[in-house]
Each structure stands twice: as structure tokens, then as C-alpha cells.
């Protein structure tokens, strides 16, 4: 008998996945002539991509764009968020702009991105940057507001300068919430890179999907691209979750 933890962790998820594959397989088998590929055909398509050397190249291309756009946003958003979190007047002044930009999908920026940066990597990175910058800024502002007053008071009591206060109290104090925001934002960035690649570039997993359709209805490659996007999204999320287990941020999560 397996312990129930193992059942919950492995057996049930695998069962669900197997049933899904089986249903998919049967549905395709029952509809001859459909362009939608079977699971087997989709996995063969992944192997084909690997043999052609495209698999690695496209994944790296997509990750490369996400990395640049996301980390540039992080580098600018966190200091801005800390500043606005501490400086009430600045926050009130910028708030209308931030709120107005927030509901605009990053994809609405595609024409402007192409206008400014042309068709290419820079456009895609710009879109990722836009998609990441606002949520990261707002998360940081919010996290700074949530810092315990007694922690700031204690920091000042021990004679910290403003700079030391930011480094030794504010940054560690916002980290748990910031990491959650970073994880959610990375998910958004990954959604956006695929969309951006469909329009603005000629490599990457998003490009693979439109290209496979345009170049002869290769729907097996389309679905292969979708599977890869899903799997990499899960992997990125898993990595970000690892950050939440660091000993100096665990205090911030309710499960303790």
C-alpha cells in the first residue's frame, strides 16, 4: 500500500494525465481525416524538431527574450516600487497613469513596438518588459506598504541611515510578497512572449506555431509547440516556487 502522500503527489496526477492522453488518442482515432494530430504524432513532431536542431534553438530564443524583458523590468520596477511605497506624494501623482496603463493588454502595444523597435528581438523584449513592469511595480509598492511599522521603527532606533534601512529592513521585508509577484509575473511574461513571437520575430516557440500552420498545415508541429510552451511554463513556475522555500523568506507565507 502506498502512503497517501505519494498517491496525492504522483499517482493521481499521472492517472489524470493518462486519461487525458487516452481520450485525446481515441477522439483522433474516431475522426479520420482530421488535421488535429494524435498524441503520438505530436510527440514525434517534438523529436523531429530535436533532430533538425530547432527544438533547442527555439526554446533558447524564447527564453532569451523573456529573460531580458523580465529582468530589465525587475531591475527598474523594484527600485521604483520601493520609492513610491515610501514616498506617498510620488505614488499619488503616478497612480492615475499606472491604473490607466494596467488594463491595456501588452499585445495592444505590438504596433507601437514594431514602430519603435522594428520586427525583431527588441520588439518582443519590449513587450515582455511592458507585461512585467507594471505588475512588478505595483507588487513592490504594495509590499512596502505592508512592512510592519515596528520593523521600520526598530531600524531607525538602531541608527540606520535611509540607505541602510532600505537594504536591511525594507528589501528583506518585501521579499516574500515580491517573490510571489515575480512568479505570477513570469507566468504572464511567458504568455506574452509566445504571442509576441507570432508577430514580431522569426524564431521561438510562438513563431514555430504560426510558421507550422502557414508552411503547409503541419498541425503536429503546432501541437508540439503548445506542449513545449506548457511544459516550460510549468518548469519556470517550479523554479520560482523554489525561491519561496528560502529560509529568510519563509516567514512571509501563511503555511508556517
Amino acid at each position, binding site marked *: 500500500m502506498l502512503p497517501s502522500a505519494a498517491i496525492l503527489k504522483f499517482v493521481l496526477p499521472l492517472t489524470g494525465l493518462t486519461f487525458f492522453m487516452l481520450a485525446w488518442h481515441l477522439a483522433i482515432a474516431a475522426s479520420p481525416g482530421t488535421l488535429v494530430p494524435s498524441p503520438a504524432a505530436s510527440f514525434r513532431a517534438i523529436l523531429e524538431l530535436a533532430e533538425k536542431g530547432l527544438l533547442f534553438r527555439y526554446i533558447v530564443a524564447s527564453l532569451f527574450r523573456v529573460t531580458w524583458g523580465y529582468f530589465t523590468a525587475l531591475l527598474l520596477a523594484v527600485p521604483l516600487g520601493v520609492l513610491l511605497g515610501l514616498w506617498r506624494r510620488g505614488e499619488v501623482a503616478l497612480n492615475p497613469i499606472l491604473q490607466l496603463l494596467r488594463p491595456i493588454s501588452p499585445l495592444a502595444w505590438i504596433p507601437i513596438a514594431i514602430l519603435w523597435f522594428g520586427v525583431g528581438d527588441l520588439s518582443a523584449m519590449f513587450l515582455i518588459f511592458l507585461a512585467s513592469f507594471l505588475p512588478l511595480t505595483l507588487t513592490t509598492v504594495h509590499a512596502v506598504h505592508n512592512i*510592519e511599522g*515596528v520593523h521600520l521603527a*526598530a531600524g*531607525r*532606533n*538602531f*541608527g540606520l541611515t535611509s540607505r541602510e534601512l532600505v537594504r*536591511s529592513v525594507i528589501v*528583506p*521585508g518585501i521579499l516574500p510578497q515580491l517573490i510571489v509577484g515575480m512568479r505570477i509575473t513570469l507566468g504572464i511574461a511567458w504568455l506574452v512572449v509566445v504571442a509576441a513571437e507570432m508577430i514580431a520575430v522569426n524564431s521561438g516557440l510562438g513563431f514555430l506555431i504560426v510558421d507550422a500552420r502557414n508552411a503547409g498545415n503541419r498541425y503536429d508541429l503546432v501541437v508540439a509547440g503548445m506542449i513545449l510552451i506548457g511544459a516550460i511554463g510549468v518548469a519556470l513556475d517550479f523554479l520560482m516556487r523554489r525561491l519561496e522555500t528560502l529560509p529568510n523568506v519563509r516567514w512571509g507565507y501563511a503555511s508556517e
Partner: protein
Amino acid sequence: MTKVVFTKIGMTFGSAKADKSVHVLDDINLSVNQGEFVCLLGPSGCGKSTLLNIAGGFIKPSEGEVTIDGERVTGPDPRRIFVFQERGVFPWLTVEQNIGFGLFRQPANERRERIAHYVQLVGLQGFEQSYPRELSGGMKQRLEVARALAVNPDVLYLDEPFGALDSITRLQMRRELLRIWQAEKKTILFVTHDIEESVQLADRVVVLSARPGRVRRVVDIDIPHPRDLSDPRYLQLRDEIFGEIGLAHQI
């Protein structure tokens, strides 16, 4: 020798319009001697915590001033450390790192020695690498006291430090605090609304009235430590303060 002097402290919160403002402290005059343990006692909302925050430099009084060694208080200062309830410790730092927090300008070996000394003093040996979430409430409170003492302040301000602890732990913590006070010879200002606590700990109890807080009476607790809680003198002083606050000592 006089250490902390409150002169004509008045505090009003809120807008300039008289009907919206809250008058919390009125004409507080008090002087605390070097090495003395003084309790500020009063009902909830009497402004005792505000008074402590004024002494700590976190709040500017509307009227009057606080001086320490003749020097006017204008802001928080590492020579006078404020101890909050247990939530004042930094949850992202280990016990050792918390105690060392205020020692960031000291050389590494000095830092290490002081950390080891205060870990020992508050009895947290074996927990040096633990995070606050792994400690009990009483241990967190001891940690915060150790963090305060590590920077060798002249004055400790304690704002209902044991309020969140269970009653047994609270008694142990009082004993610990007295032991530490006798070992380290700090001047202590301790805010509480617990009459028994004030009579157990203090050299003098300053009884404040309800809002706006005024000094109603200053009671000298002339019982040597360790204090026997069934000593007639202890009971007499305690009942006097109960009477002063207007409570019959009966349930």
C-alpha cells in the same frame, strides 16, 4: 543622578480644529534617575504608550520636551532602545543575526563576542541559527531584549513587552528582566496596564489618569528584590494603586 526628564509634556493628535483633535497627554512632569526602573501605569488609551514613544524620539510632543542627560530628544537614538511586543524582532534574520543587527558598525570579532554574550544572557543557547518563527513567544521577547542590550544602550523603553504572552511565561519573563536589569544596570521605562506587574517590577510606579493622561500619583515601591508576592507591604502597595485607579480589589 537624573537621567530622563519629562518637562510639561502635552500631546494632541489630529487636526487644528478643536472638535476633531484628541488630547492624549497633559502637562506631564517626571524625572527618572540613572539605573532606575520606572513603570508607567494607566488604563488603555491614557497615552502611556504615546509618552514612551515621545521619550524614544518616535513622536514629537505638541508641548514640552524630554531631555536625557540634559540633552533634548529629537529623534530615535541607538543609546536608547525601544522594545516592542515580540513582533519587533526581524523574522528574516536568525537569532544571531537579530542580536547582531545593531552592531553593524562594530568590527567582526567584537560583534561575535557580543552576540555570544547576549545569547547566553537571555538563555537562547542552541537556537543561534533558528529563525523567530521557530521560537515561542517568550523566546522571541527575550531575543528582542537581547538585540536591544547588545548595542549597550543607557536606557531601555519597554512598551507592554509581555502583553502577548501567557500568564506563566509572563511571570518568568519578569524575573528574567529583573535579573538582566540588575546585571546590566540600565535605566528602564516600562509601560503596562497591569497593576501587579508594575508593583512586582518597578522602583517607582507612575500612575496616569484616563485621557487626557496626567500624572495622578507616583508610588515608591520600597520592597527589595526578590519580592515576595504575599508580603504585606507588597499587598498594601498593590491595593493602594488599585484604589488610586478606582477599582475595588474584588471580582
